[in-house]
Protein backbone atom coordinates (compact mmCIF):
# COMPACT_ATOMS: atom_id res chain seq x y z
CA UNK A 1 0.00 0.00 0.00
CA UNK A 2 1.50 3.34 -0.99
CA UNK A 3 1.67 6.48 1.10
CA UNK A 4 -1.39 8.09 -0.41
CA UNK A 5 -3.52 5.00 0.15
CA UNK A 6 -2.38 4.70 3.75
CA UNK A 7 -3.17 8.37 4.31
CA UNK A 8 -6.64 7.83 2.81
CA UNK A 9 -7.27 4.83 5.02
CA UNK A 10 -6.31 6.79 8.13
CA UNK A 11 -8.42 9.74 7.00
CA UNK A 12 -11.44 7.50 6.52
CA UNK A 13 -10.91 5.89 9.91
CA UNK A 14 -10.76 9.33 11.55
CA UNK A 15 -13.90 10.36 9.69
CA UNK A 16 -15.79 7.27 10.78
CA UNK A 17 -14.66 7.86 14.37
CA UNK A 18 -15.69 11.52 14.19
CA UNK A 19 -19.14 10.91 12.77
CA UNK A 20 -19.82 8.35 15.49
CA UNK A 21 -18.37 10.30 18.43
CA UNK A 22 -19.06 13.97 17.72
CA UNK A 23 -22.88 13.82 17.73
CA UNK A 24 -22.73 11.69 20.92
CA UNK A 25 -20.51 14.15 22.76
CA UNK A 26 -21.99 17.36 21.36
CA UNK A 27 -23.41 19.89 23.80
CA UNK A 28 -26.29 20.77 21.52
CA UNK A 29 -28.88 18.57 19.89
CA UNK A 30 -28.22 18.84 16.11
CA UNK A 31 -31.93 18.41 15.37
CA UNK A 32 -33.41 20.71 18.03
CA UNK A 33 -34.35 24.23 17.07
CA UNK A 34 -33.89 26.73 19.92
CA UNK A 35 -33.80 30.49 19.93
CA UNK A 36 -33.68 30.97 16.18
CA UNK A 37 -33.17 34.73 16.12
CA UNK A 38 -30.23 34.67 18.51
CA UNK A 39 -28.44 31.72 16.94
CA UNK A 40 -29.17 31.60 13.21
CA UNK A 41 -26.59 32.00 10.44
CA UNK A 42 -23.57 32.50 12.68
CA UNK A 43 -20.45 32.57 10.44
CA UNK A 44 -17.80 29.86 10.92
CA UNK A 45 -15.55 30.21 13.95
CA UNK A 46 -17.79 32.69 15.75
CA UNK A 47 -20.06 32.58 18.78
CA UNK A 48 -23.80 33.16 18.74
CA UNK A 49 -25.57 35.70 20.96
CA UNK A 50 -26.04 33.07 23.67
CA UNK A 51 -22.25 32.75 23.87
CA UNK A 52 -21.99 29.29 22.33
CA UNK A 53 -19.07 28.77 19.96
CA UNK A 54 -19.75 27.25 16.53
CA UNK A 55 -16.77 25.87 14.65
CA UNK A 56 -18.48 25.96 11.26
CA UNK A 57 -21.27 28.38 12.11
CA UNK A 58 -24.99 27.67 12.19
CA UNK A 59 -27.76 27.19 9.66
CA UNK A 60 -30.96 29.21 9.28
CA UNK A 61 -32.53 27.55 12.33
CA UNK A 62 -29.49 28.15 14.53
CA UNK A 63 -28.38 24.52 14.51
CA UNK A 64 -24.64 23.91 14.78
CA UNK A 65 -23.34 23.01 11.33
CA UNK A 66 -20.35 21.00 12.51
CA UNK A 67 -22.40 18.66 14.69
CA UNK A 68 -25.06 18.34 12.01
CA UNK A 69 -22.43 17.60 9.42
CA UNK A 70 -21.04 14.78 11.53
CA UNK A 71 -24.52 13.37 12.08
CA UNK A 72 -25.12 13.62 8.34
CA UNK A 73 -21.83 11.84 7.79
CA UNK A 74 -23.16 8.83 9.70
CA UNK A 75 -26.03 8.49 7.27
CA UNK A 76 -24.04 9.32 4.14
CA UNK A 77 -21.18 6.96 4.97
CA UNK A 78 -23.45 4.14 6.09
CA UNK A 79 -25.77 4.43 3.10
CA UNK A 80 -22.86 4.77 0.68
CA UNK A 81 -20.95 1.78 2.01
CA UNK A 82 -24.01 -0.43 2.47
CA UNK A 83 -25.37 0.54 -0.94
CA UNK A 84 -22.12 -0.30 -2.65
CA UNK A 85 -21.76 -3.60 -0.78
CA UNK A 86 -25.36 -4.48 -1.62
CA UNK A 87 -24.71 -3.81 -5.29
CA UNK A 88 -21.52 -5.87 -5.07
CA UNK A 89 -23.30 -8.82 -3.47
CA UNK A 90 -26.20 -8.77 -5.94
CA UNK A 91 -23.76 -8.44 -8.83
CA UNK A 92 -21.63 -11.32 -7.58
CA UNK A 93 -24.61 -13.62 -7.16
CA UNK A 94 -26.12 -12.76 -10.55
CA UNK A 95 -22.79 -12.95 -12.37
CA UNK A 96 -21.76 -16.22 -10.72
CA UNK A 97 -25.09 -17.95 -11.28
CA UNK A 98 -25.32 -16.70 -14.87
CA UNK A 99 -21.87 -18.00 -15.74
CA UNK A 100 -22.34 -21.28 -13.85
CA UNK A 101 -25.75 -22.14 -15.24
CA UNK A 102 -25.14 -20.76 -18.74
CA UNK A 103 -27.85 -21.13 -21.36
CA UNK A 104 -31.09 -19.24 -20.99
CA UNK A 105 -30.35 -18.06 -17.42
CA UNK A 106 -27.13 -16.49 -18.61
CA UNK A 107 -28.71 -14.87 -21.65
CA UNK A 108 -31.63 -13.39 -19.71
CA UNK A 109 -29.43 -12.08 -16.88
CA UNK A 110 -26.98 -10.48 -19.28
CA UNK A 111 -29.75 -9.01 -21.44
CA UNK A 112 -31.33 -7.34 -18.41
CA UNK A 113 -27.95 -6.09 -17.30
CA UNK A 114 -27.21 -4.69 -20.77
CA UNK A 115 -30.58 -2.97 -20.91
CA UNK A 116 -30.09 -1.39 -17.46
CA UNK A 117 -26.53 -0.37 -18.39
CA UNK A 118 -27.81 1.56 -21.37
CA UNK A 119 -29.80 3.91 -19.16
CA UNK A 120 -27.47 6.37 -17.40
CA UNK A 121 -27.28 5.31 -13.74
CA UNK A 122 -28.45 8.67 -12.49
CA UNK A 123 -31.61 8.49 -14.61
CA UNK A 124 -32.23 4.94 -13.42
CA UNK A 125 -31.77 6.12 -9.84
CA UNK A 126 -34.27 8.93 -10.35
CA UNK A 127 -36.77 6.50 -11.86
CA UNK A 128 -36.42 4.01 -9.00
CA UNK A 129 -36.25 6.63 -6.26
CA UNK A 130 -39.63 7.87 -7.41
CA UNK A 131 -41.09 4.40 -6.86
CA UNK A 132 -41.11 4.31 -3.08
CA UNK A 133 -41.39 6.81 -0.29
CA UNK A 134 -38.03 8.60 -0.06
CA UNK A 135 -35.77 7.65 2.84
CA UNK A 136 -32.56 5.88 3.76
CA UNK A 137 -33.96 2.39 3.07
CA UNK A 138 -35.18 3.42 -0.38
CA UNK A 139 -31.86 4.99 -1.31
CA UNK A 140 -30.08 1.84 -0.16
CA UNK A 141 -32.33 -0.46 -2.19
CA UNK A 142 -32.07 1.76 -5.25
CA UNK A 143 -28.27 1.93 -5.03
CA UNK A 144 -28.21 -1.85 -4.91
CA UNK A 145 -30.69 -2.23 -7.74
CA UNK A 146 -28.85 0.13 -10.09
CA UNK A 147 -25.24 -0.73 -9.30
CA UNK A 148 -24.98 -4.48 -9.70
CA UNK A 149 -24.57 -4.74 -13.49
CA UNK A 150 -20.89 -3.84 -13.72
CA UNK A 151 -19.93 -6.26 -10.95
CA UNK A 152 -22.10 -9.00 -12.48
CA UNK A 153 -20.21 -8.73 -15.77
CA UNK A 154 -16.82 -8.83 -14.06
CA UNK A 155 -17.72 -11.83 -11.91
CA UNK A 156 -19.32 -13.63 -14.83
CA UNK A 157 -16.16 -13.30 -16.89
CA UNK A 158 -13.97 -14.51 -14.05
CA UNK A 159 -16.21 -17.43 -13.15
CA UNK A 160 -16.09 -18.55 -16.78
CA UNK A 161 -12.31 -18.46 -16.55
CA UNK A 162 -12.03 -20.18 -13.18
CA UNK A 163 -14.48 -22.88 -14.23
CA UNK A 164 -11.88 -24.27 -16.61
CA UNK A 165 -9.29 -24.69 -13.85
CA UNK A 166 -8.27 -28.25 -12.94
CA UNK A 167 -9.16 -27.83 -9.26
CA UNK A 168 -12.78 -27.29 -10.24
CA UNK A 169 -12.84 -30.59 -12.09
CA UNK A 170 -11.08 -32.14 -9.09
CA UNK A 171 -13.77 -30.88 -6.71
CA UNK A 172 -16.46 -32.19 -9.03
CA UNK A 173 -14.72 -35.53 -9.35
CA UNK A 174 -14.61 -35.77 -5.56
CA UNK A 175 -18.39 -35.66 -5.64
CA UNK A 176 -18.99 -32.13 -4.32
CA UNK A 177 -22.43 -30.78 -5.19
CA UNK A 178 -22.66 -28.22 -7.96
CA UNK A 179 -23.68 -25.53 -5.48
CA UNK A 180 -20.76 -26.31 -3.20
CA UNK A 181 -18.26 -26.23 -6.05
CA UNK A 182 -19.58 -22.86 -7.21
CA UNK A 183 -19.62 -21.08 -3.85
CA UNK A 184 -16.65 -22.75 -2.16
CA UNK A 185 -14.24 -23.20 -5.03
CA UNK A 186 -15.15 -20.97 -7.95
CA UNK A 187 -16.57 -17.73 -6.55
CA UNK A 188 -13.86 -17.07 -3.95
CA UNK A 189 -11.30 -17.21 -6.76
CA UNK A 190 -13.27 -14.86 -8.98
CA UNK A 191 -13.87 -12.22 -6.33
CA UNK A 192 -10.86 -9.90 -6.84
CA UNK A 193 -12.31 -7.55 -9.47
CA UNK A 194 -15.66 -7.53 -7.67
CA UNK A 195 -13.99 -6.31 -4.48
CA UNK A 196 -12.16 -3.57 -6.37
CA UNK A 197 -15.35 -2.48 -8.12
CA UNK A 198 -17.23 -2.43 -4.82
CA UNK A 199 -14.53 -0.36 -3.10
CA UNK A 200 -14.44 2.11 -5.97
CA UNK A 201 -18.23 2.14 -5.89
CA UNK A 202 -18.38 3.45 -2.31
CA UNK A 203 -17.33 6.97 -3.28
CA UNK A 204 -19.70 6.96 -6.19
CA UNK A 205 -22.55 5.65 -4.04
CA UNK A 206 -21.98 8.42 -1.49
CA UNK A 207 -22.06 10.97 -4.31
CA UNK A 208 -25.26 9.51 -5.75
CA UNK A 209 -26.95 9.40 -2.35
CA UNK A 210 -26.08 13.03 -1.76
CA UNK A 211 -27.33 13.88 -5.24
CA UNK A 212 -30.68 12.23 -4.63
CA UNK A 213 -30.96 13.96 -1.27
CA UNK A 214 -30.07 17.25 -2.92
CA UNK A 215 -32.96 16.83 -5.34
CA UNK A 216 -35.26 15.95 -2.43
CA UNK A 217 -35.61 12.29 -3.43
CA UNK A 218 -33.21 10.84 -0.86
CA UNK A 219 -32.79 11.35 2.89
CA UNK A 220 -35.58 13.61 4.11
CA UNK A 221 -35.13 16.52 6.55
CA UNK A 222 -34.98 16.93 9.50
CA UNK A 223 -32.60 13.94 9.29
CA UNK A 224 -29.43 15.50 7.92
CA UNK A 225 -27.45 14.15 4.98
CA UNK A 226 -24.69 16.01 3.18
CA UNK A 227 -26.89 16.26 0.12
CA UNK A 228 -29.92 17.76 1.81
CA UNK A 229 -27.71 20.07 3.90
CA UNK A 230 -26.32 21.50 0.67
CA UNK A 231 -29.87 21.80 -0.63
CA UNK A 232 -30.78 23.62 2.59
CA UNK A 233 -28.02 26.16 2.00
CA UNK A 234 -28.92 26.61 -1.64
CA UNK A 235 -31.04 29.74 -1.37
CA UNK A 236 -28.64 31.19 1.22
CA UNK A 237 -25.69 30.85 -1.16
CA UNK A 238 -25.52 34.60 -1.73
CA UNK A 239 -25.88 35.70 1.89
CA UNK A 240 -24.44 32.79 3.90
CA UNK A 241 -22.40 30.59 1.55
CA UNK A 242 -20.83 28.54 4.37
CA UNK A 243 -24.09 26.67 5.00
CA UNK A 244 -23.80 24.91 1.63
CA UNK A 245 -20.01 24.96 1.26
CA UNK A 246 -19.11 23.09 4.46
CA UNK A 247 -21.05 19.85 3.85
CA UNK A 248 -19.74 19.83 0.28
CA UNK A 249 -16.16 19.91 1.53
CA UNK A 250 -16.89 16.98 3.84
CA UNK A 251 -18.34 15.14 0.86
CA UNK A 252 -15.27 15.84 -1.29
CA UNK A 253 -12.82 14.70 1.37
CA UNK A 254 -14.75 11.47 1.94
CA UNK A 255 -15.18 10.62 -1.72
CA UNK A 256 -11.56 11.54 -2.40
CA UNK A 257 -10.34 9.18 0.33
CA UNK A 258 -12.58 6.36 -0.96
CA UNK A 259 -11.41 6.90 -4.55
CA UNK A 260 -7.71 6.97 -3.67
CA UNK A 261 -8.09 3.82 -1.59
CA UNK A 262 -9.98 2.07 -4.38
CA UNK A 263 -7.44 3.26 -6.95
CA UNK A 264 -4.52 1.77 -5.10
CA UNK A 265 -6.44 -1.47 -4.64
CA UNK A 266 -7.20 -1.57 -8.35
CA UNK A 267 -3.62 -0.79 -9.36
CA UNK A 268 -2.58 -3.90 -7.49
CA UNK A 269 -5.32 -6.15 -8.82
CA UNK A 270 -6.28 -4.95 -12.30
CA UNK A 271 -5.66 -2.36 -15.01
CA UNK A 272 -7.78 0.74 -15.58
CA UNK A 273 -10.50 0.57 -18.21
CA UNK A 274 -12.19 3.56 -19.83
CA UNK A 275 -15.63 2.23 -18.95
CA UNK A 276 -14.92 2.57 -15.21
CA UNK A 277 -14.33 6.26 -15.68
CA UNK A 278 -17.26 6.82 -17.99
CA UNK A 279 -19.72 5.27 -15.60
CA UNK A 280 -19.21 8.09 -13.23
CA UNK A 281 -21.76 10.86 -13.48
Amino acid sequence: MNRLARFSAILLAVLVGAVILVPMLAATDPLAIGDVLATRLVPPGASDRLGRFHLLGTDRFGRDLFVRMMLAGRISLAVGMAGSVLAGVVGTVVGAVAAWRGGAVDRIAMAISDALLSIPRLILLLLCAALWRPGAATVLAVLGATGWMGVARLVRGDVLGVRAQPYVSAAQALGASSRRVLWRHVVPNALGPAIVATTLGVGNAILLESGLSFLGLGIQPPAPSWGNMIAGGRDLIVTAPWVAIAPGLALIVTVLACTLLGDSLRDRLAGERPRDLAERA
Partner: protein
Amino acid sequence: MLIWLVVTLTFVLVRLAPGDAAAILVSPTATPEDAARLRAELALDAPVVVQYAKWMGGLLRGDLGESFTQRRPVSAVLGEAIPVSLGLGLSSLLLTFVVGVAIGTLQAARRGTVVDTALTFATTAVYAAPSYWLALSLIAVFTYGATVWGLPAAFRLPAFGLRDPAGTEVGWAAVVDVVRHAILPVTVLAAVGAAGIARYARSTVADLAGAEWVRTARAKGLRSGVVYGRHVLANALPPLVVLLALSLPGVVAGSVFVESVFAWPGMGRVMVGAIASRDYPVVMGATVLYAALVILANLAADLALPLIDPRRDS
Protein backbone atom coordinates in the same frame (compact mmCIF):
# COMPACT_ATOMS: atom_id res chain seq x y z
CA MET B 1 -33.72 -6.05 -29.20
CA LEU B 2 -31.75 -4.05 -26.66
CA ILE B 3 -33.93 -1.04 -27.26
CA TRP B 4 -37.07 -3.14 -26.85
CA LEU B 5 -35.75 -4.43 -23.50
CA VAL B 6 -34.94 -0.91 -22.33
CA VAL B 7 -38.37 0.31 -23.34
CA THR B 8 -40.14 -2.58 -21.61
CA LEU B 9 -38.06 -2.26 -18.45
CA THR B 10 -38.82 1.45 -18.34
CA PHE B 11 -42.52 0.76 -18.66
CA VAL B 12 -42.45 -1.86 -15.91
CA LEU B 13 -40.41 0.34 -13.57
CA VAL B 14 -42.66 3.33 -14.05
CA ARG B 15 -45.86 1.32 -13.62
CA LEU B 16 -44.56 -0.34 -10.45
CA ALA B 17 -44.70 3.04 -8.80
CA PRO B 18 -47.36 3.29 -6.13
CA GLY B 19 -49.47 6.41 -6.08
CA ASP B 20 -52.27 7.24 -8.43
CA ALA B 21 -51.31 9.72 -11.12
CA ALA B 22 -54.89 10.93 -11.40
CA ALA B 23 -55.08 11.62 -7.67
CA ILE B 24 -52.07 13.91 -7.94
CA LEU B 25 -53.23 15.60 -11.12
CA VAL B 26 -56.74 16.63 -10.09
CA SER B 27 -57.31 19.88 -8.28
CA PRO B 28 -57.41 19.75 -4.45
CA THR B 29 -61.17 20.29 -4.37
CA ALA B 30 -61.95 17.52 -6.85
CA THR B 31 -64.33 14.71 -5.96
CA PRO B 32 -63.53 11.01 -6.45
CA GLU B 33 -65.78 11.16 -9.53
CA ASP B 34 -63.59 13.85 -11.07
CA ALA B 35 -60.53 11.68 -10.49
CA ALA B 36 -62.28 8.69 -12.07
CA ARG B 37 -63.19 10.77 -15.10
CA LEU B 38 -59.62 11.95 -15.48
CA ARG B 39 -58.37 8.39 -15.09
CA ALA B 40 -60.66 7.29 -17.92
CA GLU B 41 -59.59 10.22 -20.04
CA LEU B 42 -55.89 9.38 -19.65
CA ALA B 43 -56.66 5.67 -20.19
CA LEU B 44 -55.16 4.93 -16.77
CA ASP B 45 -58.06 2.61 -15.93
CA ALA B 46 -57.29 0.26 -18.81
CA PRO B 47 -55.49 -3.01 -18.02
CA VAL B 48 -51.73 -2.64 -17.88
CA VAL B 49 -51.29 -4.93 -20.89
CA VAL B 50 -53.50 -2.69 -23.00
CA GLN B 51 -51.58 0.40 -21.85
CA TYR B 52 -48.33 -1.33 -22.70
CA ALA B 53 -49.55 -2.32 -26.18
CA LYS B 54 -50.78 1.22 -26.79
CA TRP B 55 -47.51 2.76 -25.70
CA MET B 56 -45.37 0.35 -27.70
CA GLY B 57 -47.56 0.87 -30.76
CA GLY B 58 -47.20 4.62 -30.47
CA LEU B 59 -43.46 4.35 -29.92
CA LEU B 60 -43.01 2.36 -33.13
CA ARG B 61 -44.68 5.18 -35.01
CA GLY B 62 -42.47 7.68 -33.21
CA ASP B 63 -45.35 8.86 -31.03
CA LEU B 64 -44.40 9.21 -27.37
CA GLY B 65 -47.92 9.98 -26.20
CA GLU B 66 -49.26 13.05 -24.48
CA SER B 67 -48.01 14.65 -21.28
CA PHE B 68 -50.46 14.27 -18.38
CA THR B 69 -49.74 17.64 -16.85
CA GLN B 70 -49.11 19.83 -19.86
CA ARG B 71 -51.68 18.24 -22.18
CA ARG B 72 -49.47 18.40 -25.22
CA PRO B 73 -47.40 15.77 -27.02
CA VAL B 74 -44.38 14.46 -25.11
CA SER B 75 -42.29 14.95 -28.24
CA ALA B 76 -43.08 18.68 -28.05
CA VAL B 77 -42.15 18.87 -24.35
CA LEU B 78 -38.89 17.00 -24.91
CA GLY B 79 -38.26 18.75 -28.21
CA GLU B 80 -37.93 22.05 -26.37
CA ALA B 81 -35.62 20.55 -23.75
CA ILE B 82 -33.29 18.47 -25.93
CA PRO B 83 -31.48 21.34 -27.71
CA VAL B 84 -30.82 23.02 -24.35
CA SER B 85 -29.32 19.88 -22.79
CA LEU B 86 -27.50 18.77 -25.90
CA GLY B 87 -26.02 22.23 -26.42
CA LEU B 88 -24.92 22.32 -22.81
CA GLY B 89 -23.60 18.76 -23.00
CA LEU B 90 -21.73 19.08 -26.29
CA SER B 91 -20.10 22.41 -25.54
CA SER B 92 -18.92 21.22 -22.15
CA LEU B 93 -17.79 17.91 -23.65
CA LEU B 94 -15.64 19.76 -26.18
CA LEU B 95 -14.14 21.91 -23.45
CA THR B 96 -13.73 18.81 -21.29
CA PHE B 97 -11.71 17.06 -23.97
CA VAL B 98 -9.41 19.96 -24.81
CA VAL B 99 -8.75 20.97 -21.21
CA GLY B 100 -8.58 17.38 -19.93
CA VAL B 101 -6.08 16.18 -22.54
CA ALA B 102 -3.99 19.34 -22.13
CA ILE B 103 -3.78 18.91 -18.35
CA GLY B 104 -3.10 15.18 -18.61
CA THR B 105 -0.33 15.68 -21.17
CA LEU B 106 1.25 18.46 -19.17
CA GLN B 107 1.25 16.20 -16.11
CA ALA B 108 2.76 13.31 -18.02
CA ALA B 109 5.46 15.56 -19.48
CA ARG B 110 6.32 16.94 -16.03
CA ARG B 111 5.94 13.65 -14.23
CA GLY B 112 7.02 13.62 -10.61
CA THR B 113 7.33 17.40 -10.33
CA VAL B 114 5.38 19.72 -8.07
CA VAL B 115 3.17 20.68 -11.03
CA ASP B 116 2.20 17.05 -11.54
CA THR B 117 1.42 16.43 -7.88
CA ALA B 118 -0.61 19.62 -7.56
CA LEU B 119 -2.61 18.87 -10.69
CA THR B 120 -3.21 15.27 -9.64
CA PHE B 121 -4.56 16.50 -6.35
CA ALA B 122 -6.70 19.16 -8.02
CA THR B 123 -8.18 16.83 -10.64
CA THR B 124 -8.90 14.09 -8.11
CA ALA B 125 -10.59 16.59 -5.81
CA VAL B 126 -12.73 18.09 -8.57
CA TYR B 127 -13.53 14.57 -9.74
CA ALA B 128 -14.78 13.79 -6.24
CA ALA B 129 -16.88 16.94 -5.97
CA PRO B 130 -20.59 16.80 -6.67
CA SER B 131 -21.41 18.99 -9.65
CA TYR B 132 -24.27 20.79 -7.91
CA TRP B 133 -21.93 21.79 -5.11
CA LEU B 134 -19.37 23.14 -7.60
CA ALA B 135 -22.21 25.01 -9.24
CA LEU B 136 -23.31 26.56 -5.95
CA SER B 137 -19.72 27.45 -5.09
CA LEU B 138 -19.27 29.22 -8.41
CA ILE B 139 -22.50 31.10 -7.85
CA ALA B 140 -21.21 32.10 -4.43
CA VAL B 141 -17.99 33.40 -5.97
CA PHE B 142 -19.62 35.27 -8.83
CA THR B 143 -22.47 36.80 -6.88
CA TYR B 144 -21.51 37.00 -3.19
CA GLY B 145 -17.80 37.15 -3.98
CA ALA B 146 -18.17 39.60 -6.83
CA THR B 147 -19.85 42.13 -4.56
CA VAL B 148 -17.72 41.51 -1.44
CA TRP B 149 -14.35 41.52 -3.23
CA GLY B 150 -15.39 44.26 -5.62
CA LEU B 151 -14.69 42.37 -8.83
CA PRO B 152 -15.36 44.32 -12.03
CA ALA B 153 -18.91 44.25 -13.36
CA ALA B 154 -17.96 41.89 -16.20
CA PHE B 155 -17.42 39.16 -13.58
CA ARG B 156 -20.98 39.42 -12.30
CA LEU B 157 -22.27 36.60 -14.40
CA PRO B 158 -25.95 35.74 -14.42
CA ALA B 159 -26.49 32.58 -12.36
CA PHE B 160 -29.99 31.53 -13.33
CA GLY B 161 -31.93 30.70 -16.45
CA LEU B 162 -31.13 30.49 -20.10
CA ARG B 163 -31.82 34.11 -20.98
CA ASP B 164 -32.38 37.44 -19.36
CA PRO B 165 -35.93 37.31 -17.92
CA ALA B 166 -36.78 40.53 -19.74
CA GLY B 167 -35.58 38.88 -22.93
CA THR B 168 -35.68 42.02 -25.07
CA GLU B 169 -32.44 41.48 -26.97
CA VAL B 170 -32.50 40.27 -30.54
CA GLY B 171 -29.79 39.16 -32.94
CA TRP B 172 -26.25 39.22 -31.60
CA ALA B 173 -27.24 40.70 -28.27
CA ALA B 174 -29.44 37.64 -27.67
CA VAL B 175 -26.58 35.28 -28.52
CA VAL B 176 -24.26 37.13 -26.16
CA ASP B 177 -26.95 36.91 -23.49
CA VAL B 178 -27.27 33.12 -23.86
CA VAL B 179 -23.49 32.71 -23.84
CA ARG B 180 -23.18 34.77 -20.66
CA HIS B 181 -25.83 32.59 -19.06
CA ALA B 182 -24.06 29.47 -20.28
CA ILE B 183 -20.61 30.25 -18.89
CA LEU B 184 -21.20 28.98 -15.36
CA PRO B 185 -23.11 25.76 -16.21
CA VAL B 186 -20.69 24.79 -18.97
CA THR B 187 -17.71 25.48 -16.72
CA VAL B 188 -19.07 23.24 -13.96
CA LEU B 189 -19.87 20.35 -16.27
CA ALA B 190 -16.57 20.68 -18.11
CA ALA B 191 -14.56 20.89 -14.88
CA VAL B 192 -15.92 17.57 -13.61
CA GLY B 193 -15.45 15.90 -16.99
CA ALA B 194 -12.00 17.35 -17.60
CA ALA B 195 -10.83 16.07 -14.22
CA GLY B 196 -11.80 12.54 -15.23
CA ILE B 197 -10.25 12.79 -18.71
CA ALA B 198 -7.07 14.33 -17.31
CA ARG B 199 -6.61 11.42 -14.89
CA TYR B 200 -6.94 8.99 -17.75
CA ALA B 201 -4.90 11.03 -20.23
CA ARG B 202 -2.05 11.30 -17.74
CA SER B 203 -1.67 7.56 -17.34
CA THR B 204 -2.09 6.90 -21.09
CA VAL B 205 0.42 9.55 -22.14
CA ALA B 206 2.86 8.57 -19.40
CA ASP B 207 2.77 4.95 -20.61
CA LEU B 208 3.37 5.98 -24.21
CA ALA B 209 6.11 8.49 -23.37
CA GLY B 210 8.24 5.63 -22.13
CA ALA B 211 7.99 3.74 -25.43
CA GLU B 212 11.02 3.02 -27.54
CA TRP B 213 9.81 4.88 -30.61
CA VAL B 214 9.43 7.99 -28.50
CA ARG B 215 13.09 7.70 -27.56
CA THR B 216 13.89 7.25 -31.23
CA ALA B 217 11.99 10.40 -32.10
CA ARG B 218 13.90 12.29 -29.44
CA ALA B 219 17.19 10.82 -30.65
CA LYS B 220 16.38 12.14 -34.12
CA GLY B 221 16.54 15.56 -32.49
CA LEU B 222 12.87 16.44 -32.73
CA ARG B 223 11.65 19.21 -30.51
CA SER B 224 9.71 18.14 -27.43
CA GLY B 225 6.52 19.72 -28.77
CA VAL B 226 6.70 17.73 -31.99
CA VAL B 227 7.42 14.52 -30.11
CA TYR B 228 4.34 14.98 -27.97
CA GLY B 229 2.09 16.30 -30.71
CA ARG B 230 2.97 13.94 -33.53
CA HIS B 231 4.11 10.81 -31.78
CA VAL B 232 2.67 10.53 -28.31
CA LEU B 233 -0.72 12.22 -28.57
CA ALA B 234 -1.53 10.66 -31.93
CA ASN B 235 -1.25 7.28 -30.24
CA ALA B 236 -3.01 8.31 -27.05
CA LEU B 237 -6.01 9.65 -28.92
CA PRO B 238 -7.98 6.47 -29.75
CA PRO B 239 -8.65 5.38 -26.16
CA LEU B 240 -9.40 8.99 -25.24
CA VAL B 241 -11.97 9.35 -28.00
CA VAL B 242 -13.64 6.14 -26.85
CA LEU B 243 -13.73 7.53 -23.33
CA LEU B 244 -15.17 10.78 -24.64
CA ALA B 245 -17.98 9.04 -26.53
CA LEU B 246 -18.72 6.85 -23.52
CA SER B 247 -18.90 9.83 -21.23
CA LEU B 248 -21.38 11.81 -23.35
CA PRO B 249 -24.45 10.21 -21.70
CA GLY B 250 -22.90 10.80 -18.29
CA VAL B 251 -22.45 14.46 -19.10
CA VAL B 252 -26.00 14.79 -20.32
CA ALA B 253 -27.35 12.94 -17.28
CA GLY B 254 -25.03 14.92 -15.02
CA SER B 255 -26.68 18.04 -16.31
CA VAL B 256 -29.71 17.03 -14.20
CA PHE B 257 -28.01 18.71 -11.24
CA VAL B 258 -26.51 21.60 -13.13
CA GLU B 259 -29.81 22.36 -14.83
CA SER B 260 -31.54 22.12 -11.49
CA VAL B 261 -29.16 24.58 -9.83
CA PHE B 262 -29.00 27.05 -12.71
CA ALA B 263 -32.70 26.72 -13.56
CA TRP B 264 -32.03 25.70 -17.15
CA PRO B 265 -35.05 24.39 -19.04
CA GLY B 266 -33.32 21.17 -20.21
CA MET B 267 -33.98 17.43 -20.13
CA GLY B 268 -32.86 17.02 -16.55
CA ARG B 269 -35.34 19.53 -15.22
CA VAL B 270 -38.12 18.07 -17.33
CA MET B 271 -37.28 14.59 -16.00
CA VAL B 272 -37.18 15.62 -12.33
CA GLY B 273 -40.38 17.61 -12.67
CA ALA B 274 -42.16 14.79 -14.46
CA ILE B 275 -41.16 12.25 -11.80
CA ALA B 276 -42.47 14.49 -9.06
CA SER B 277 -45.82 14.96 -10.78
CA ARG B 278 -46.12 11.33 -11.94
CA ASP B 279 -46.25 12.40 -15.55
CA TYR B 280 -45.64 8.85 -16.84
CA PRO B 281 -45.47 9.56 -20.59
CA VAL B 282 -42.84 12.26 -20.13
CA VAL B 283 -40.77 10.14 -17.72
CA MET B 284 -40.84 7.16 -20.07
CA GLY B 285 -40.13 9.28 -23.13
CA ALA B 286 -37.15 10.96 -21.47
CA THR B 287 -35.73 7.64 -20.24
CA VAL B 288 -36.00 6.07 -23.68
CA LEU B 289 -34.24 9.10 -25.11
CA TYR B 290 -31.40 8.85 -22.60
CA ALA B 291 -31.02 5.14 -23.38
CA ALA B 292 -30.97 5.85 -27.11
CA LEU B 293 -28.22 8.37 -26.46
CA VAL B 294 -26.11 5.78 -24.60
CA ILE B 295 -26.55 3.21 -27.35
CA LEU B 296 -25.72 5.79 -30.02
CA ALA B 297 -22.64 6.94 -28.11
CA ASN B 298 -21.37 3.36 -27.83
CA LEU B 299 -22.01 2.87 -31.53
CA ALA B 300 -20.24 6.11 -32.37
CA ALA B 301 -17.23 5.04 -30.31
CA ASP B 302 -17.06 1.73 -32.16
CA LEU B 303 -17.40 3.40 -35.55
CA ALA B 304 -14.97 6.23 -34.84
CA LEU B 305 -12.19 3.96 -33.64
CA PRO B 306 -11.05 2.66 -37.07
CA LEU B 307 -11.16 6.20 -38.42
CA ILE B 308 -8.68 7.60 -35.92
CA ASP B 309 -6.67 4.43 -35.40
CA PRO B 310 -5.57 3.03 -38.77
CA ARG B 311 -4.20 -0.08 -37.08
CA ARG B 312 -7.72 -1.21 -36.36
CA ASP B 313 -10.00 -2.30 -39.15
CA SER B 314 -13.44 -3.44 -38.22
